[in-house]
């Protein structure tokens, strides 16, 4: 049987704070697992324990109780990190390095050298669409560009698991969309993605399964479709339906005692989609002129 990409069992993490030695339970007996090849989202409000859980998975923190395994290896085992790529929230990296130098630095840390590294860097710069800015220093990158170079560095050693902490935080809607597209691409390539976010709409768009964490405890977990679908309701979207057709449907519904129409109206696009469409059209116009 294949090991789960991430297996968290009864994880508890306690922090002591202040001179009075007050204790804060950041994560309380948390259990979940991420299957290989899926996009798993851990969602919850700020301070709910998402980042702490992520840091334990990355080996940056040790658990007080419980076990955390990455592809069957203890998360504290350095060998587990061969399989992990990590993008922290709002990363800065070394601002004095260019995009290419940043990827070279992280590649070398992973033991990559020469032609293999050079080719991988070119491949990743193309993937995150930063070929034009490859020689620019990171000090001149926008937030979205930093996030994309961050994603590229997380993928440098071809990890099987990518851990993303608030991957779209502070990025404009277009940049945010690009990052989500990249996550979907990774999923298509069979890479497991474990992300933490409080931007629920975005999580809904990319995740296969989600866990909802609150005050360090898992409140709900499961397949996203199962979690958000309202079992006893059915949505029907019609195209070019005349008032007569609608009246006919209403008549049919009225014939059944237990059935009722809950809502009626025009489906709406999201403000985000509207913004992206407009920005795309303007960019196209600019390119043409």
């Amino acid at each position: 049987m294949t090991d789960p990409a991430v297996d968290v069992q009864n994880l508890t993490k306690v922090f002591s704070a202040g001179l009075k030695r007050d204790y804060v339970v950041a994560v309380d007996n948390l259990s979940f697992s991420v299957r290989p090849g899926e996009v798993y989202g851990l969602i919850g409000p700020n301070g709910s324990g998402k980042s702490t859980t992520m840091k334990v998975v990355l080996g940056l923190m040790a658990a007080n109780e419980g076990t955390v395994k990455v592809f069957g290896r203890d998360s504290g085992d350095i060998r587990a990190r061969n399989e992990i790529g990590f993008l922290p929230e709002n990363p800065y990296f070394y601002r004095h390095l260019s995009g290419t130098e940043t990827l070279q630095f992280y590649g070398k840390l992973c033991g990559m050298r020469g032609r293999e590294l050079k080719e991988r860097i070119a491949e990743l710069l193309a993937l995150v669409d930063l070929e034009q800015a490859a020689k620019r220093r990171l000090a001149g990158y926008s937030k979205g560009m930093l996030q994309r170079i961050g994603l590229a560095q997380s993928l440098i050693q071809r990890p099987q698991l990518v851990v993303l902490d608030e991957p779209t935080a502070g990025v404009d809607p277009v940049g945010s969309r690009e990052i989500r597209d990249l996550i979907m691409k990774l999923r298509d390539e069979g890479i497991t993605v474990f992300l933490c976010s409080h931007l629920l709409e975005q999580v809904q768009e990319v995740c296969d399964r989600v866990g909802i964490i609150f005050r360090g405890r898992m409140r709900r977990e499961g397949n996203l479709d199962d979690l958000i679908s309202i079992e006893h309701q059915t949505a029907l979207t019609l195209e070019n339906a005349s008032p007569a057709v609608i009246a006919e449907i209403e008549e049919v519904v009225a014939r059944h005692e237990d059935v009722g129409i809950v809502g009626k109206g025009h489906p709406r696009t999201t403000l985000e989609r509207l913004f992206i469409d407009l920005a795309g059209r303007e960019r196209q116009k600019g390119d043409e002129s």
Partner: protein
Amino acid sequence: MTDPDTASPSPPPRHLAHPVFSASRVATIAAGTVTQLIRMKTFYFLLAFALLVVAVGNFNIPATPAKELSMIKKVAFGTMDLFAWLFAIVSTALLIPRDEEDRTLYTILSKPVRRIEYLVGKLCGVLVILAISLLAMFAICAVMISMRESAFISAELSSMLSQERYSEDEIRQQIGLIQAQGMRPELAVAVLASFLKAAVVAVVTIFLSTFASSSLFTIIVSILIFLIGHAHSMATNFWLAETENNILVRMGAKVIRILIPDYQLFAFSEGIVLGEPVVWGLVVQMALITAGYLLVFLLLSLLVFVDKEF
């Protein structure tokens, strides 16, 4: 959104062997540190040093040429030593807290990098920069001292020859006196002493920055330790020798003696600058003491850093 059951399966994870210590990762981190310090324009201080040395070199001190040259050398090498340790503190103190603040540390440590490799890499980077800086400062001093030396020799020669009352031996002796205080290869040992001292300062600063909350705190405490380290042998001797001191004072003095490096040990370079012969046994001993300090403080840093949670 896609059904996880239909997701492409991940290729099986690689189970790579992982060396206990990788010199190549240390070299990568050290090279990154060197680039970082160079691009932070830290070498601008060399310009300040060059201006200072040129200014000192042009002082006219009312003394014999040999004495004047000796004074210039003393001030130039003293300034070089000051710049080296100050640079070691400031540049080292910035490294780890900044990596932590920018979360660069997270991305580095989430790669297969051991914490000892990170610390050794940072230290090696600082040592390389220190070596380059000291060599550059030595070159500046060498040029200035050589120029002053030849100016003094020409002036002395023409003055003695014009007076026509000095024998060849007397002239040679006078020139020899000036040359003894001029640029000699032994002065490189004084530069080595400054490097060894700055290396100890750097490793102490790395140790402090593993638990300090800010660069400013690290810089202040490092400077304090440096100052105590210059006086502590005298102070501890006094406290330890005084039998009237209570046990707490004596224990405190012993703790300071163990924990704080004795920077006064490196003062042997002052004699070399003044023209005393090099005692090679002492140089080797100092190199070994420095290696000991580096090892002890690296281990102490690792003890703090290995379990540090980010």
